[in-house]
């Protein structure tokens, strides 16, 4: 699997698992997940792919990544602040 195929697969996999978790907020949840856990290069590659049409991405991850690509989300709500 090449890099973009792998990233598309990962995004679709995330989307399939959070679809019922977050309901209407799923695209935002996906965007936040990618923002928090993917390194800059991975984010850059997938965002470029989205801007080129996002072939292979299912609707939910496509929507979420479009949010990320558009920088429309405000700074993501702070991650759960544990007192650790």
């Amino acid at each position: 699997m090449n890099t973009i195929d792998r990233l598309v697969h990962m995004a679709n996999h995330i989307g399939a698992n959070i679809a019922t978790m977050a309901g209407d907020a799923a695209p935002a949840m996906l965007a936040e997940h990618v923002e928090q856990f993917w390194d800059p290069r991975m984010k850059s590659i997938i965002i470029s792919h989205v801007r080129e049409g996002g072939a292979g991405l299912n609707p939910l991850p496509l929507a979420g990544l479009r949010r990320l690509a558009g920088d429309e989300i405000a700074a993501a709500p702070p991650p759960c602040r544990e007192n650790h």
Partner: protein
Amino acid sequence: MAYTPQDDFGTPAATGEPVTLTIDGRAVTVPGGSAVMRAAAEAGISVPKLCATDMVKQFGSCRLCLVEVDGMRGTPASCTTLVAPGMTVKTQSDRLQKLRRGVMELYISDHPLDCLTCSANGDCELQDMAGAVGLRDVRYGYEGKNHLEQAKDTSNPYFDFDPTKCIVCSRCVRACDEVQGTLALTVEGSGFKSKISAGTPMDDFLSSECVSCGACVQACPTSALNEKAVTAIGKPDTVTITTCAYCGVGCTFRAETRGEQVVRMIPWKDGKANRGHSCVKGRFAWGYARHQDRITQPMIRASIHEPWREVSWTEALTHAAGEIRRIQTQYGTRAVGGITSSRCTNEETFLVQKLIRAGFGNNNVDTCARVCHSPTGYGLKTTFGTSAGTQDFDSVMDADVILLIGANPTDGHPVFASRMKKRLRQGTKLIVVDPRRIDLVRSPHIEAAHHLPLRPGTNVAVLTALAHVIVTEGLADEAFIRERCDWDEYQDWGAFVSQPERSPEATEILTGVPAADLRAAARLFATGGNGAIYYGLGVTEHSQGSSTVMAIANLAMATGNIGRPGVGVNPLRGQNNVQGACDMGSFPHELPGYRHISDDEARAQFEAEWGVALDPEPGLRIPNMLDAAVDGVFKALYVQGEDILQSDPNTKHVSAGLAAMECVIVHDIFLNETANYAHVFLPGCTFLEKNGTFTNAERRIQPVRRVMSPLNGYEDWEVTQELARALGLAWDYTHPSQIMDEIARLTPSFAGVSFARLDQEGSMQWPVNDDAPDGTPTMHIDGFVRGKGKFVVTDYVPTDEKTGPRFPLLLTTGRILSQYNVGAQTRRTENVVWHEEDRLEIHPVDAEDRGLRNGDWVRLASRAGETSLRALITDRVAPGVVYTTFHHPLTQANVVTTDYSDWATNCPEYKVTAVQISRSNGPSDWQAEYGTLSERARRIGDGAIDEAAE
């Protein structure tokens, strides 16, 4: 400290209301339920004893511990006589002395008189008792019938059984029953013919069910059961308390040494994780520390095709640092990274992530938790607010129902399994959710109330079906949920799990679990009292690992089973310090203490302490490092104490990634499989050679104390510091306690931890801070760390790994008791006698379909690759499922595992691989080639570095 035997109070501790009695004129107050023997011992009065030891229940057989009690007839045994208020006891009198001498005369009349050459000389309770009772002669003589011609059993690689020295006190039998729970030993025959037997008359210790935990050896008052090392070396003269470097139980041991030579490791009775017990690995399998394969000299090479060249530390570190900087100049700051070790100490992993963040300038740090419990971190942080289990191990003793999912503790966490078995034998009910019939499903005096043998990959469906029953049948704990959880989220979740398609009946065809069994199990868990959930990698190593963890958390919250002893969500973390490695910020997205790297406030604290700006962007996880390497943009890796080529999935991809790098630095004690692709080897040291701390599966921080000088010259934290210095960082730690002090400054959950505190307390469970100055055995007592517990809807999403006509079976993997993970340590000990190769467990039906017999070579093939190993035909696996371990590099089980992983954390889906099996002639060609490649890669010679290659 100088060697003294551990205190032995004779009988177990009791917990009743205080009782005051008089012993030898002294007032003594002890808990009610205590035996007189224990009361005397606690007052410093030693009553002679032979059959009693405080690790097992009293037996009253030796008749040595007789005492006189006012108002009681005769001379009762003090071990079986319980204290009573106002009781008056005399432990010494002419009458008692005469009786005791008579008992000893009988023992000694049938005992070898070779004390001076006996391996227990100076450390023998029989010898001590002869002295204590003033034995001067044996009136029976020595000409009568005796047992002095019986043959020794030397079958076990670590201890011998000499029946001539045995006094048949049955301590060993009781230890095997009550401490270990295996019941391998018995007293065969009666009267004069009584003899300790390890099973049937045909069995010796090795062939019996004995699991070599050593509890019998520890219990034995003579040298009848004694370590071979003691026989060879002699009595220890020094004791150091330290912590085991195998599994996540974190047993504490007395490392008993002579000079710097370890004689034996004795479980420490005051160890709060293990309570004086151990398994074969921690107890006996420490010889790898001095194995001939140990590499003690740094080595470098320009190309992985060249032999290694031994060099000085200065040359190796200068070369490594030079390569890292060269690569960063050429390819960018993020072209390098590192992997911390879950075997090394907290202080050492903290330094590795500090090196990467402050030295390399990025967050490309990860840990082996990636491939095991990373979903635990994600799932429990999301639902409860803390990336760790909620209880301590003692909690199991208050559980009424245990739900055990995807774990096999008798193999993976044996000392904790012994405690669980103890509780199960007290009547606690057990529900096992596992595709295999693990030992706990049916063991002596234990039978699971329910075994749900689900199809691999269907965890979430099963857990949702359990939740369906609980919610639709009105079994949820609404009061708890309203008080402690988000009620709206609960209602959304409740509506989801209540859907008909989530029911046991609807999901049976998918999961393979009969609906009636699942309903019964759900009802039992919800209504059986304190319900505790224990789980392992059968939960996490799936494409829905994180979802499964959250589904488990949902169940615990729905039934109100959080926040007190006896309940909780208990991940059985595998490695000795994998919890610690996670705590110490080994993940690419989190600083120590689980604060996200983008958290400005948290990051600023570290920047202030470290004097450098930190990258606010998450770094690469291990699988993504390998992807980036194959893409040509990730070029250097510093790997401390991990062997990703053997342990990570899809070996072909791992080797491609490693081969694509220009500088792989392996910091380890042996040349491992990953080192085949390394350019720099920095020799490491074992847990016996360093100071520091480990954190076990119950968040218990425990000291690791050095007992011998590092063979390589440095503790591992010193090596990392030297590498940091070579990179220009001004680190000046002189002792690991300083590193812990820094951790405490920067990590709120460790704020109250210090080496001094640990020396005082023995161990502490984090959080340790102003809110919990003495640590936290049980989490979430009054509220969840995140505030309200979060119910998360976890829909079942089938894995992409599908069976089909070409690959009709499902492979799942696991561990065995005697070997540990990739086997780097245990394969270099006598433990190989139990598991010299990985075997493939195949159901008889699947075997018969393919003409396979026990011991046949089998080709195991998946879409990723194939390997060959030998068959073990067993009905422990269900039809359609095969199972193997991954302890031997030449099997390379991970050649067949895939790249599929957990959606949230990329934890590999080791537990679900579609495979086909067929008869084979023997090891595959690639296995033979791999063996050759491996041999070539391990050459150490004087070959000059190829300047042209540089």
